[in-house]
């Protein structure tokens, strides 16, 4: 088969759109890990819950945009409850305690969705204004996936502004550097962690609503996605937001280009990428050394 420049370019755009979802998921994961040192195994489940709740709201209101705003709030609230009553009692007990807790929580959430929405999953559809494909000059590309790239950019920008330009963002950053000193300075660090966990899960929920129109929505949809998000987080560096964005896009592009040349190896390629990065740079692109120890 002939590889033309336009095919390569289209494959690249496909990879970026794919990477946008990975990046979005990894940001949430990385945010929670970077600030709280909690490896959130329920992240994929929050993504899945976001997809279900998003479709539920869409069914109620018939409006995608409304659901896009409301769903992250609901999933974020779920995250707040999780942090306050489940994760908080485990702080200071080692990294494996919250890891096991969130792993168990993910199965509880999966089962809850099975009970509420059925085991088969529910149909999702693309919002009418974003349906169909547009000609990019290199080939046809789905409008909705272009929107995905745009939406990710907006979320990343908003998060960056929040962390870097606001007073509260400053506190969050200080808290992640040294929680003890923050406490001494009179900052209620427990509340900061609560908010960070909430934001992280809200972003997972948002990724779920955003991803729903592109795939089948079923209770197990988060399992696969979680593994990929961890790959992205590890490649980008645990706890690093720019790392998560860069690695997300890179993983998407590597997957997409491998699919073109050797479809059989596409799934494997991202894990090979992770292995290579871990060998050459164990802390990932922008990770801090020694976070896990």
């Amino acid at each position, binding site marked *: *088969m002939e590889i*033309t420049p336009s*095919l390569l370019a*289209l*494959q690249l755009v*496909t*990879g970026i*759109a*794919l990477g946008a979802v990975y990046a979005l998921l990894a940001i949430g994961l990385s945010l929670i890990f970077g600030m709280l040192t909690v490896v959130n195994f329920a992240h994929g489940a929050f993504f899945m819950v976001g997809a279900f709740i998003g479709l539920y709201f869409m069914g109620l209101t018939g409006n995608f945009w409304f659901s896009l705003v409301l769903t992250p709030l609901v999933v974020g609230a779920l995250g707040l409850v999780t942090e306050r009553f489940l994760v908080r009692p485990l702080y200071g007990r080692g990294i494996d305690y919250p890891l096991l807790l969130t792993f168990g929580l993910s199965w509880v959430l999966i089962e809850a969705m099975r009970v509420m929405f*059925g*085991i*088969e*999953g*529910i*149909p*999702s*559809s*693309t919002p009418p204004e974003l*349906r*169909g*494909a547009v000609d990019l000059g290199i*080939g*046809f*590309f*789905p409008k*909705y*996936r272009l929107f995905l790239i745009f939406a990710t950019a907006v979320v990343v920008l908003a998060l960056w502004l929040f962390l870097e330009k606001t007073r509260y963002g400053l506190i969050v950053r200080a808290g992640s550097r040294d929680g003890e000193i923050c406490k001494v300075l009179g900052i209620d660090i427990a509340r900061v962690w609560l908010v960070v966990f909430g934001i992280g899960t809200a972003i997972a929920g948002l990724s779920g609503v955003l991803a729903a129109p*592109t*795939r*089948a929505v*079923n209770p*197990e*949809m988060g399992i*696969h*996605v979680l593994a990929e998000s961890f790959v992205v987080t590890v490649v980008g560096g645990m706890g690093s937001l720019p790392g998560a964005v860069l690695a997300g896009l890179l993983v998407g592009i590597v*997957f*997409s280009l*491998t*699919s*073109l040349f050797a*479809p*059989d190896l*596409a*799934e494997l390629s991202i894990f090979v990428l992770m292995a290579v990065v871990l060998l050459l740079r164990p802390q990932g692109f922008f990770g801090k050394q020694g976070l896990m120890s």
Partner: protein
Amino acid sequence: MSHTPANLRRRRIVMAGTAVAAAPALFNIARAQGAAIKIGFPVPLTGAFSAEAQDQVRAAELAVKEWNAAGGHKGQMAELLVRDDKLNPGEAATRTLELIEKDKVNFVVGSLSAATQLSINAVTKERKVLFNSISQSDTINEAKDWSLYTFHEALNPHLTAGAVGRYAFPKFGKKVVYLTADYAYGHEMVRGFQRAGAGLGVQTLADIRHPLGAADYSAFLPRIQALKPDILVLCNFGRDLVNSAKQATDFGLKQGTKIIAPVLLYTSRQAGGADAFEGILGGTSYYWGMEDKIPSAKKFNDAFRKAYGGSVPSDYGALGYAGIRSVLQAVKDADATDSTRVSIALRQLKYDWYKGPQFYRKCDHQSVQSVVIVESKSKGMKDKNDVFNVLAIEAADEKNLRTCEEMGHKVTT
């Protein structure tokens, strides 16, 4: 002539002996009339195909209920023993062994994957218990897996894919791309299409393999777009089909390309929704909407609707119904409940339970049956069950199957 006491004694001994010899037989008959005919039914009640499996159970229970209501066999009633095989071949073998050894089932009907049906068959074959499989597979009828006790009620990939190919290739074009789930089922489907296409001058532009259970297919789609095929065949199943169909639609592939799937299931279509499946064509063993053409389908649907609050049977559900009915009919025909005699009766059976005339091919016990070609609807649907248009029904014909010799069977009668 007079009887001597010795003679009399001898005669009494003979009579007593006869009575003793006959007693177990009498006892057996008495017990047989009391005990139920037990049919083991291992299906994946949990796991990815649980919706289909639950429908299989509903339809099988309907078949048992109807048979019992009609008086059973000489007063002997049937009983269904449902077990969860969790879609796991090891679990399926264990449950089947339990059904045979502990529950003493007479027959086994069930399964909902190529792998579990082979593991169930391995157990039933060894213990000479009749097994009627209600899930798709090409291999179960091949000589190496087959036995006198192995029956296959479901369609097989070769027949289904072949029927869809024979319908679609002349209508939509000769340049074909396959997007295939990388496991036995996917490969068997591609082989079925390619065999059907060989005589029609069909050209395979690419056969792209994707891992089973992939969530995103977008990375494969630009290449397919560039190849500009007449037909894109999605050789995958369940959620994989929903995802790949949805994403191919988003990429605008439907504009120049007809998308077809070997198996278009009622349950997949319900889960995937009208938009994703719009205009996609595929094959199925059964669709309730064929009731206006097939009287037995109407009868079956009505009974199912009455039993289950107006809902209609799915394709795999209907197979559960047929699988049980065939075996129970053979019990009557054989006037026996042992697997050997019932198997022999089943080989002779000609039946029409729900989709037109069917029979089991003698050499491999494959049920020779029609294949329904359907197209997904997105407009003008009367209710939530109204999801397909029936485009054609390929009549039952032995010549559409692989030959007995090809399957490794020496005897063809």
